[in-house]
């Protein structure tokens, strides 16, 4: 027999690895990807492939030639970033712009901070917000879901339901009248609306959430606290004045809330470590999202809300600690 292997305890490990977690996220994203292909056709496929390939390529190039370290693209995290970036842009976005977005997401959002685990901001959102500021026109011309077609950049475009709502409200139209111009709640639920590629189908995104919870990839706290906060906050506004505020279900189903709450805000690296911290984070995102929607210039707002709360995560982690065993003695 060869020499005995010596190491301190524990001697057994759970089989979960970073790679498995990342691939579970990819699997959870698949239903939404399928819905997008169904609604937007070729565009969805081209945008996703471009974002994924360029994110992987940039990660590999930067690690190999700039950081001179062993490339770790097989861990799946760049793949997730690529898909999420694609999900956050319209399906008729020119390929060059997608490649620029990928470079910003990976290069600025992730690698400049030292790679996976060290980035304070969600890389895909860094890419998205950069594009939104640099290419506002292309980033806000949303193709209308026409069913599967081969059209790509010449797709018919239109506003998102949330955009229509915002415009209508600021023009003084009553909400009930605006509602007639946009799809009904059931249609919104399964994603028949204009918008960024992966944000439309609440149904598919919720399926993904179910899968991630089942596989214990994430915990429910962050999505739940965002949903509750947005629901309660917009619910109050709606009850107070239903003619100038959309109802809470509408707010939850549109403008990327599902995508943001389920897949962007739950990014491990950029969200808090303790359950209490997760609630604070989620509530913060909810409040900022609604504030931007109601008072701000953009119709949606969850991307900015997540990035703002990302910035508070180190602070939350420092001050919001899990309750220690035996810390505060209450016996009974």
């Amino acid at each position: 027999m060869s020499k005995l292997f010596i190491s301190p305890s524990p001697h057994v490990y759970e089989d979960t690895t970073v790679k498995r977690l990342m691939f579970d996220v990819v699997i959870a994203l698949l239903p939404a990807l399928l819905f997008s292909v169904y609604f937007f056709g070729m565009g969805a496929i081209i945008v996703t492939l471009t974002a994924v390939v360029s994110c992987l390529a940039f990660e590999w190039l930067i690690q190999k030639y700039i950081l001179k370290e062993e490339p770790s693209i097989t861990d799946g995290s760049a793949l997730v970033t690529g898909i999420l970036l694609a999900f956050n842009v319209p399906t008729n976005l020119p390929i060059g712009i997608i490649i620029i977005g990928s470079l910003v997401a990976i290069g600025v959002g992730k690698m400049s901070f030292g790679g996976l685990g060290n980035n304070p901001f969600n890389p895909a959102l860094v890419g998205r917000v950069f594009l939104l500021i640099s290419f506002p026109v292309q980033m806000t011309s949303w193709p209308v879901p026409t069913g599967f077609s081969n059209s790509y950049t010449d797709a018919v475009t239109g506003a998102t339901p949330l955009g229509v709502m915002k415009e209508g409200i600021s023009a003084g139209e009553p909400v009930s009248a605006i509602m007639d111009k946009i799809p009904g709640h059931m249609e919104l639920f399964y994603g028949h609306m204009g918008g960024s590629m992966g944000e439309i189908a609440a149904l598919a995104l919720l399926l993904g959430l179910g899968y991630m919870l089942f596989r214990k990839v994430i915990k429910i706290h962050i999505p739940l606290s965002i949903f509750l906060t947005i629901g309660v906050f917009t619910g109050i506004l709606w009850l107070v004045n239903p003619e100038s505020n959309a109802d809470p279900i509408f707010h939850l189903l549109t403008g990327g809330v599902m995508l943001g709450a389920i897949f962007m805000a739950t990014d491990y690296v950029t969200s808090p470590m303790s359950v209490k911290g997760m609630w604070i984070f989620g509530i913060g995102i909810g409040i900022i999202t609604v504030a931007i929607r109601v008072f701000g210039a953009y119709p949606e707002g969850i991307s900015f809300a997540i990035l703002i709360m990302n910035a508070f995560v180190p602070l939350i982690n420092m001050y919001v600690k899990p309750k220690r065993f035996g810390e505060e003695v209450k016996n009974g």
Partner: protein
Amino acid sequence: MLKTFPKGGVHPAEGKYSANSAIEVLPLPKQVSIPIAQHIGAPSKPVVTKGDKVKVGDKIAESTGFVSANIHSSVSGTVFKVDKVLDSTGYKRPCVIINVEGDEWHESIDKSTDLKKEISLTDKEIIHRINESGIVGLGGATFPSHVKLSVPDGKKIDVLIINGVECEPYLTSDHRLMLEKAEEMLVGIQILMKALGVNLALIGIENNKPDAIEHLEKLVKDYPGIEVHALKVQYPQGGEKQLIKALINREVPSGGLPLDVGAVVHNVGTAYAVYEAVQKNKPLFERVVTLTGKSVKKPSNFMVRIGTPVSYLIEAAGGLPEDTGKVINGGPMMGKALNALDVPVVKGASGILIMPAELSQRKKEVNCIRCAKCVSVCPQGLEPYLLNRLAQLEKNDKLETDGVMDCIECGSCAYTCPAGLPLLDYIRLGKSRVSQIIRSRKQ
């Protein structure tokens, strides 16, 4: 809903291959090496020298303080020498080495197997006898048992908790003991209750041992004050603090002891040893040891004399498997990897686990992805990822305020980390540094 502790915990694969192997008495080896430090506290002082004749049960090393324990010969024969021998800690430490000749027991030991139910000793006498008999916590902590029974003035104990959880995967020695020596163990519990002056004893057993639960539930009807509680399977439920929380929902304060919440915890193996010491006048010189592993031919539970070489047990279980990569003294979560196989079995050894090479390597390390899984599994409510980093940076003040001393070294964090980080290695290091600082502050 079955009871369990509320915070953290993991559920590793159980691998209880030896659960159905009845306890076998292991034949005597030719020579035993009995370490003089097998317990927490001061090492004892040898009272025999080379050439002395000893019988089974003779005292060979004497306790040197309150927190210390006597050591008795586990065999009869001649003391070969008192010398340093490599033991399960990986260091050479003083042992009494005895050549075995026959099997002659000390006259005062009652060798009969009849169950003796009536307890004639008083509480003081019981504690004295337990102290004399060298009994220590047999669950692995090896804390001298008489210390736990000597309740300081001003503390009131109202419940005795008996740990039959055996939450470590693979190990089955307590399980077998509960099945095969149940009545003796129950009398042992009554003795402990008498020593502590309590009327209530709760036996906690995880639900993966339904036969033991059923068997004991039937028997306790004749033992007033003793209750059996089935618990949900969750590691580390055998930790004192977690077990107390699970059974009586009291939380031992940080830095405190079970007696701060009116409880004392003893292991089922200890209760059995107490029965033998008090009713049969038999000091602690043998114990049940599980010898198991995925590739072991005959996973077994042996009644082993203390000081028997581990290699001897391995032979009795069918020899060392071809694919062996690691041999662990204890369970896979908290046990210690051995660097030699001829080390002696000690009082705290509940099992020897043989791991195949393919399961002996650690996971590949990657960056921490801040997934917070370590935080959610920590039964002590700590933040292992943070303690790990602070320990690496040697930030001892922060380590202390972030509770490193509360870590019970259960290993749940390192077990679960998807990035394969050896969290507990660094946390242990930080903990030992901080405890040194705390000690020097007190002086």
